[in-house]
């Protein structure tokens, strides 16, 4: 997988009107890796990607992409990166082929080379038969696949994807995963942002967890889950959660963290299954009107709760 660093981020900061959107973030990405930036909305993931794409200027810090500095070599960097924005950045009254032709020309492609490349990409995203239909008639997932194809027109070395599977049907999501994995197998480095656990767990070699502008963890999925240890998570949905019930749960042995949010209590604890009956008894006796209880094995959400004390939500 690794034959040298392709992206370095050193002490990156971005401040908007006094708000620190990115706070002293440093990491490196190896050539051929798929890295996921995982965090809730507003965590600073998109800002980090926007800086790496030369769309935003950092307040301080240094970023290099394949040896090029983002402050000095923006045009060189733009030629070797492909970017899939979160929104569908396409023209709905043009056909898929016309959209691809337009962006291809913007990247300097023309003639037979452009035509062949468009044909290859339409095949890759499975939309050859719809190529000459206007995008306004496409489903959300189909548009998102064309959105990805546009970013690949100039055969970039590095692909940035901002929330690639947001709002897509399962079939399109699988097609998107397959496309990303195939590209990576051919040597492309991929950096994606997501707040969907599934994206990070299925695709990424390493996962960077971002919260409130800070990078709070970066490791493989296994490495990250080891940080949680043997903890389980119990989610309790309730009509009413009296303040006293939170305190009562905290008093139970092996309970590590308790938080409530909008009718949902989240309990992090060791040996959750064994303690489940006692937890429910305590809740009911403290006046909580329990509607449902769910127990989860350690996963990225458990990890996020463990690291930040809050749930990872969309």
């Amino acid at each position: 997988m690794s034959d040298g660093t392709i992206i370095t981020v050193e002490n990156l900061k971005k401040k908007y009107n006094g708000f620190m959107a990115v706070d002293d973030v440093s990491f490196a990405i190896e050539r051929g890796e798929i890295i996921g930036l995982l965090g809730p909305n507003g965590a600073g993931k998109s800002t980090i990607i926007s800086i790496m794409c030369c769309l935003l200027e950092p307040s301080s810090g240094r970023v290099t992409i394949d040896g090029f500095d983002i402050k000095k070599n923006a045009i060189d960097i733009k030629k070797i990166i492909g970017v899939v924005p979160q929104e569908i950045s396409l023209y709905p009254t043009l056909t898929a082929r016309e959209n691809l032709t337009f962006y291809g020309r913007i990247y300097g492609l023309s003639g037979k080379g452009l035509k062949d490349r468009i044909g290859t990409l339409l095949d890759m995203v499975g939309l050859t038969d719809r190529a000459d239909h206007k995008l306004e008639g496409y489903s959300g997932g189909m548009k998102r696949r064309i959105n990805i194809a546009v970013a690949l027109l100039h055969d970039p070395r590095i692909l940035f994807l901002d929330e690639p599977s947001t709002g897509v049907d399962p079939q399109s999501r699988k097609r998107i995963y397959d496309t990303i994995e195939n590209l990576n197998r051919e040597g492309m480095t991929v950096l994606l942002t997501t707040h969907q656990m599934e994206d990070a767990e299925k695709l990424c070699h390493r996962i960077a967890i971002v919260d409130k502008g800070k990078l709070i963890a970066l490791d493989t999925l296994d490495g990250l889950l080891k940080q949680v240890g043997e903890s389980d998570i119990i989610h309790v949905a309730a009509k009413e959660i009296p303040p006293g019930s939170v305190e009562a749960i905290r008093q139970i042995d092996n309970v590590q963290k308790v938080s409530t949010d909008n009718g949902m209590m989240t309990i992090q604890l060791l040996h959750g299954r064994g303690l489940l009956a006692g937890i429910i008894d305590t809740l009911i006796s403290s006046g909580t009107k329990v509607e449902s209880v769910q127990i989860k094995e350690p996963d990225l959400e458990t990890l996020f709760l463990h690291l930040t004390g809050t749930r990872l939500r969309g």
Partner: protein
Amino acid sequence: MKFHIIAEKDLKIVTRDRNAIFLMFLLPMLIISVAGLALGGEFAQDIRIDLLVVDLDNGDISREFIEFLEDIDILDVDMESNEFAARDRVKNQEYGRLVIIPRDFTGNIMIGQNSELLIVSDPTEESQNTIVEKIVEGYASRLSTNVVAVKTVATYGVPAFDDEQKFRIVEVASQFAEPQPVGVTTETTSTTLGEFSPFTQYVPGFAVMFLLFTTVQVGSVSLLKEQESGTLRRLVIAPLRRAEIIGGKVASTFFRGFIQLTVLILFGKFAFDLNLGSDMIAMVVLISAITLAATGLGMLVAVLVTTKDQADSVSSLLVLTMSAIGGSWWPLFIEPQFMQDLAHLTITAWAMDGFYDLLYFDLGMGGILKEVGVLLSMAIVFFGVAISRFRFE
């Protein structure tokens, strides 16, 4: 430079949009036709400009000049023999303006001497005065040619046979031509005036109004749509200079507006026999200047609002206000003076002045320099502010 790729894409999108084509061409053609036919003759009756003339010369040329003035439909010419009495009548606002033909006017022109036609006017009737000034300047310009010729011949003698002599004659003639011997600054002459038909008002009036809808409203909304949909962000991420992105957007809006205004003016000519004047280059320059200023205003609106819905409503308000006070719906000179002054803060008023100069007075390029200058200045200010505040992120 890749700005043309962005412009071509925008134009392709427009050609796919049947509503846009209807709004750009068919609706204005329909409104021009209905307004022009329904209100035929209204403005011909409204446009009456009183003019008092004092002929202190009583020579052949002064008589020809007076006949020329009397032949113009919109002028009500009256004669007054006493210069002081005439000045009093203007001072007392009995007449709006007075032309004094000086003594020995004919004689001076015949022998190649400079002369001065004097216009005394009531400053409260600015637009009518401007029309009279342009008419007089046009005639004076033609007379100036005679004076220059007489002076040249007197100085150099004729005939000239070799190239060197011809060159010297031209050189001598050009010395006499500046400043103009009959006290004028206009560069071209207006020797014949066509009929001021309702279409002289409505064709440019509605054409400019719908041009503003295309450039200010559709132009600003198109820019904001590009921002809101993220396609602008995608262009910024591509290896393009920001000037190329702005250039592409401006070029497509300008081209669309230029074609629209040209087609609507030509529609006036072919459907309603609108006289376009004799200087087609001046017409192209005027259309370009109007379209450029309007394109700049569209871009300014796009940077001053935050959503395309805001751009839509702000643009509609702007275009309708400019059209009402700027002379799209009725001639400027029937508005009170303060409204006329206010109107000249708008693109519409300067555009209409330019069109009157070409369509009615046939003043050519020299007659529209001021209007083109103001429109280009507006364009520079609009683009300057818009580009400095443009949000790429």
